[in-house]
């Protein structure tokens, strides 16, 4: 098969992998002549869906032996199959890299023959890129669940970031939608990678020249809306993953129906807003000091799709606000809707020079559309309505006064989930 045809099939098959970041690694590799990693990552292009192209995101092969319900590459689908050989991937990566099209390689694969066989092929590709081509750019490799720990260990020294997809947020839905995968196969490589990173860090304290094991850490991805877990369940899982596996990122991908299967829900549009709200929660957990149980509780297991989770938290916790801009500590400033990490730091810095007025905030580029209701400046409250969560909610999220009536309202809104076996 021609290279172009293979590229088309295997790039198309890889597009549902969300992760495309090239950040987190500024490690300069020894014995490389071309390529560097940029700490902040670099986006090289943006596709029509608004997602960035940073890495050459391809599958090594899409000839899968598994039959997961949600996946386009499952073995029962009648689609064109292709497999790259080692040199084709290396040549493509090097030539794209030299033209500054990409930041590096994102290599994943369907499982061919067995997990060990697939992992060995992936290892061959990254080894050749690093040793034969002396490539120092970014490589993100998928670890294949069920592969031997030794293969994962070896690959970890060649790549910048590794990831194992958790796919579905609970073991029941994994059992029903991906019967050939199981929870322990997915979690054990994540566990291994975490421990190798810690071990490697310790060893490098005494032996500086040792190679670094996955300098950009590990990530994972899960599909949202393919099974009927609540947002509460998902957030609890996310919280546990960040705490127990020290992940750098968790990616969420709104479920897009690609297969017809009676185990899958019927959706009218992909749950993009829900995905967005989950990302917002993710950021609140990682950078704003929120806890998962603050955002959702068993009486409210779903996120509000009309307002963002931070605003929703603020409206539920009226007693916490309004806070005084000139005295509040950083942790409190971060909880104000409309003030982000940059804004909060600016406030902390500039109030060292003088006490701030309300107008100063405007000059500093702080967004006051939401934050005006939750702060005071020198003791004065500047919100356009009195401090009352109902009034604030009405003004920030006005409800339409009219409604389009639908003939079959139950069909148009909700996703319909099949009963679990």
């Amino acid at each position, binding site marked *: 098969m021609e290279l172009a045809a293979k590229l088309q099939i295997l790039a198309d098959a890889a*597009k549902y992998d969300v992760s495309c970041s090239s950040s987190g690694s500024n490690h300069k590799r020894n014995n490389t002549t071309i390529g560097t990693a940029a700490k902040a990552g670099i986006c090289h292009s943006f596709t029509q869906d608004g997602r960035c192209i940073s890495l050459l995101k391809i599958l090594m092969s899409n000839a899968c032996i598994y039959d997961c319900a949600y996946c386009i590459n499952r073995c029962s689908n009648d689609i064109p199959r292709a497999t790259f050989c080692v040199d084709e991937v290396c040549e493509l990566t090097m030539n794209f890299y030299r033209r500054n099209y990409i930041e590096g390689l994102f290599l994943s694969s369907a499982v061919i023959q067995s997990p060990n066989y697939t992992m060995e092929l992936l290892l061959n590709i990254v080894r050749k890129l690093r040793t034969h081509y002396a490539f120092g750019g970014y490589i993100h490799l998928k670890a294949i669940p069920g592969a031997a720990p030794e293969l994962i260990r070896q690959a970890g020294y060649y790549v910048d970031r590794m990831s194992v997809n958790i796919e579905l947020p609970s073991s029941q839905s994994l059992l029903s939608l991906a019967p050939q995968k199981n929870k322990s196969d997915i979690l054990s490589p994540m566990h291994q990678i975490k421990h190798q990173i810690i071990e490697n860090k310790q060893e490098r304290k005494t032996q500086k020249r040792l190679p670094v094991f996955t300098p950009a850490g590990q990530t994972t991805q899960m599909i949202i809306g393919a099974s009927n877990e609540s947002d509460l369940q998902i957030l609890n899982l996310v919280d546990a993953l960040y705490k127990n596996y020290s992940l750098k990122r968790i990616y969420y991908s709104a479920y897009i129906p690609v297969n017809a299967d009676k185990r899958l829900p019927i959706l009218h549009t992909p749950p993009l807003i829900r995905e967005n709200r989950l990302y917002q929660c993710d950021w609140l957990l990682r950078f704003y000091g929120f806890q998962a149980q603050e955002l959702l509780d068993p009486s409210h297991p779903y996120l509000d799709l009309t307002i963002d989770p931070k605003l929703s938290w603020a409206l539920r916790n009226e007693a916490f606000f309004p806070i005084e801009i000139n005295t509040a500590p950083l942790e409190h400033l971060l909880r104000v809707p409309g003030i982000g990490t940059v804004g909060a730091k600016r406030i902390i810095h500039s109030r060292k020079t003088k006490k701030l007025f309300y107008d100063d905030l405007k000059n500093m580029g702080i967004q006051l559309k939401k934050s005006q209701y939750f702060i005071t400046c020198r003791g004065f409250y500047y919100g356009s309505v009195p401090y009352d969560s109902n009034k604030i909610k009405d003004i920030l999220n006005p409800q339409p006064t009219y409604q389009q009536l639908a003939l079959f309202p139950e069909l148009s809104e909700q996703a319909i989930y099949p009963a679990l076996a």
Partner: protein
Amino acid sequence: MNIYLYDGTFHGYLTAVFYAYTDKNVGNIKKSSEFVPNLLDTPIETPTEEDKAQRIIKSIQEKLSSYTLRNLYYIFLSEQNDCELLAFRYLKLCYHTDNQINLAYQNPLVHQCVLTAKKVSLELQRMKGFVRFRKIDEIYYATIEPDHNILPLMIKHFTLRFSDQNFVIHDLKRKYALAYDATGKEHWFCQVAEEFSPQQKDEYIDLFRLFYQSVTIAERQNLRLQKQFMPTRYQKYMPETK
């Protein structure tokens, strides 16, 4: 009002700043090529004096901070209207108060400086990704048209990254280019007016275009978001969008 004129280089600008600093009647600082004589203003030519420029750089590093120097350079490179005067006023403010003024984001002058420097660093970050090389014989050649004069800031990133290939990045708007020679490991700037457009075909352009089309998820189309991240003015020299 006195208008200080310099030759267009950063060190030339610093020389002008050196002489303007003690002058109480500074109207503006301008490139000599952009100055239009008028009845009210007195032009003062300040040819580049290397020692004066070095004195200012050393003084900023010792008395203020390298952050201030970086801001000054970025504002100078922004090439916006009256950016020279803005940088001059910023420097004066820093010396009059002290380096702490960089924390006072509420100060309109500091805020404007932060914004201007941020525009330059944003474009630099974008351009690190958006430069597209074409392979012509053994040389990789790219054309760009950035809003700000960011070519000098790109040297470190590109020479480090492509240390084993000969490349040229050509700024068509300002008619000069950054060239790098891999054998001697050295780079230099040169004046090039015309775009170099050979007939040679590069097969990897088509492959990348194919890849670009294949990774798009049609169900999630969001052209507005795409445009927000990759404004149309940059797409001119990116082959995949055509």
